[in-house]
């Protein structure tokens, strides 16, 4: 018997903390890896669906990562994608049913995009890249970290789009009614922000800002 005692890693060691913080900036799924863009364009017109979407992705990604990580040694390598899909699909159905039961309006607004979490590249990417090779706790942290990185961008984009496009935040009118031209003011909502291309431009501007601050991210060419 080996007498070596493996040093037990503490739950929030430096390494584990990096799992949480890395996807926030240096390895952000949206602005650095440019994954999950489709949903970032589609559901960021308003803040509320964006928040719900972020939470849903957080649940699916964290739970899925843990499940995949637990059964990682049982999955035959050849059919691992199918197994992963089954896991995500079951989790997404759970989320979908939950939203339909408790947040029907938001569920209506998100429509197919809840179902499309299944195809969100971030989720399959994390399963493949991380959960298949790491223990459940690390996989859980990685899932939470990545979904926060995703959610932050989503919410930031939705914040600007709802504020400038509809003059509201979370459905509450923020810009005073008297400012609008129709009421004798000078202001008008920017309709361009309601179109998906503007989400792309906002994401682009965020990437621009991030790279200006974080020079590590600039590729050499």
């Amino acid at each position: 018997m080996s007498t070596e005692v493996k040093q037990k890693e503490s739950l929030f060691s430096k390494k584990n903390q990096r799992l949480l913080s890395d996807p926030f900036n240096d390895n952000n799924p949206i602005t650095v890896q440019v994954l999950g863009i489709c949903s970032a364009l589609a559901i960021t017109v308003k803040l509320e669906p964006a928040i719900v979407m972020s939470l849903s992705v957080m649940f699916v990604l964290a739970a899925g990562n843990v499940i995949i990580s637990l059964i990682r040694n049982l999955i035959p390598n050849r059919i691992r994608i199918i197994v992963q899909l089954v896991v995500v699909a079951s989790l997404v159905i759970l989320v979908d049913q939950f939203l339909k039961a408790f947040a029907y309006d938001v569920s209506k607004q998100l429509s197919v995009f809840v179902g499309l979490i299944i195809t969100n590249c971030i989720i399959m990417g994390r399963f493949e890249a991380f959960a298949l090779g790491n223990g459940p706790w690390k996989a859980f942290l990685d899932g939470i970290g990545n979904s926060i990185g995703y959610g932050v961008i989503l919410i930031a984009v939705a914040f600007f789009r709802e504020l400038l496009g509809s003059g509201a935040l979370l459905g509450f009118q923020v810009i005073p009614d008297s400012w609008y031209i129709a009421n004798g003011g000078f202001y008008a909502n920017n309709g361009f922000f309601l179109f998906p291309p503007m989400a792309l431009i906002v994401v682009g501007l965020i990437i621009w800002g991030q790279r200006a601050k974080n020079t590590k991210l600039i590729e050499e060419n």
Partner: protein
Amino acid sequence: MKFVQNIFDQTRPLVEKDGKRNILYPLHNALETMAFVPDHTAHSGAHVRDAIDLKRTMVTVIFAMVPALLFGMWNIGRLHYGAIGLESTLIENFLFGALKLLPLITVTYAAGLGVEIFFSWKRNHPVNEGFLVSGLLIPLIMPVDIPLWMVAVSTIFAVLIGKEVFGGTGMNLLNPALTARAFAFFAYPTWMSGDQVWINTSGGDIVDGYSGATAMGDLATTVGQGLGNPATETVMAQFGPEGTYSLMNAFLGLIPGSIGETSALLILLGGLFLVFKGVGSWRIMLSFFVGGLVMAGIFNVFAVNEFMALNPIHQLMLGGFMFGMVFMATDPVSAAQTETGKYIYGFLAGFFGIMIRVFNPAYPEGIMLAILFMNVMAPLIDHYVVEANIKRREKRLANA
């Protein structure tokens, strides 16, 4: 002149690298090269000796725009007094137009140059003259009654996203002026289309029979109704020889529209000047015109509504087609660079412009979208033209 030069010479030490006010260097540099021909000479290699630099090129384009600009100014006043039923003299028309147009121009330049100066200061570049032309083009493609801050926002967006993101003047993928218009069009559709914004009707009662719509807006209402439908008769009467939008009126520019786009005659005059000076590409203009003519001709053959049945030449005189052809598509940076590519680029821009305009009445300004689309495609066209060239030469070499 000596006196002006003295001022520049005296202040130069202040703004140079280790001077006290070196933050103002870009501004000093910009004003100085604006006033005098720069005395920099190239030190190595062979160079083409020519007096034409970026600044002269830009100024040439501005000269070419002057006729359309002055006409637009006069037309603003003419339409305004016409709509409220007042007689007006030539001077009154001009004055009213100037009162409307000058704030637009000032705001555009202030907003655009503000962004440019900020970036050249951030990046330690000298301010260049890239915005000179865009700053004058933007007011010319706006409706007269658009709120000034919308123009400012659109301009800032255009310079930022259309140009600075890609590295500034000469690196832009899209035509900045059209980017500004496209932004305004999608962001503030109420102030960029419809029948409320093209003619200023303030300060008077609107006369009977007044319509603020443009020819494009009126034509768009005929889409979806069959040819010869009595419902479209009154609209189409305006396109007859006696109507508001008759071929002659459209050619001369006596119709409502964006400020500078109406007069095909004066735009063509500017275009001739550009071609004569070698600044604008006649290949693009010609193929653009042919492209539009072909598409309008095809529509004319299959005419299922009045819009399609419009005489092709008449079709091309309306809306922004002429302005796009002469001043927008020929932008030397965002257009195709190869000579063959220019023919393809121009042809498709004109072709798609008419197609969008007729097929999608919600986008009466199809020309704008078509040119922007072809701007994006231009590098692709160039790539294939160059590839084809290489292949042809390889073949020739193999056969030799």
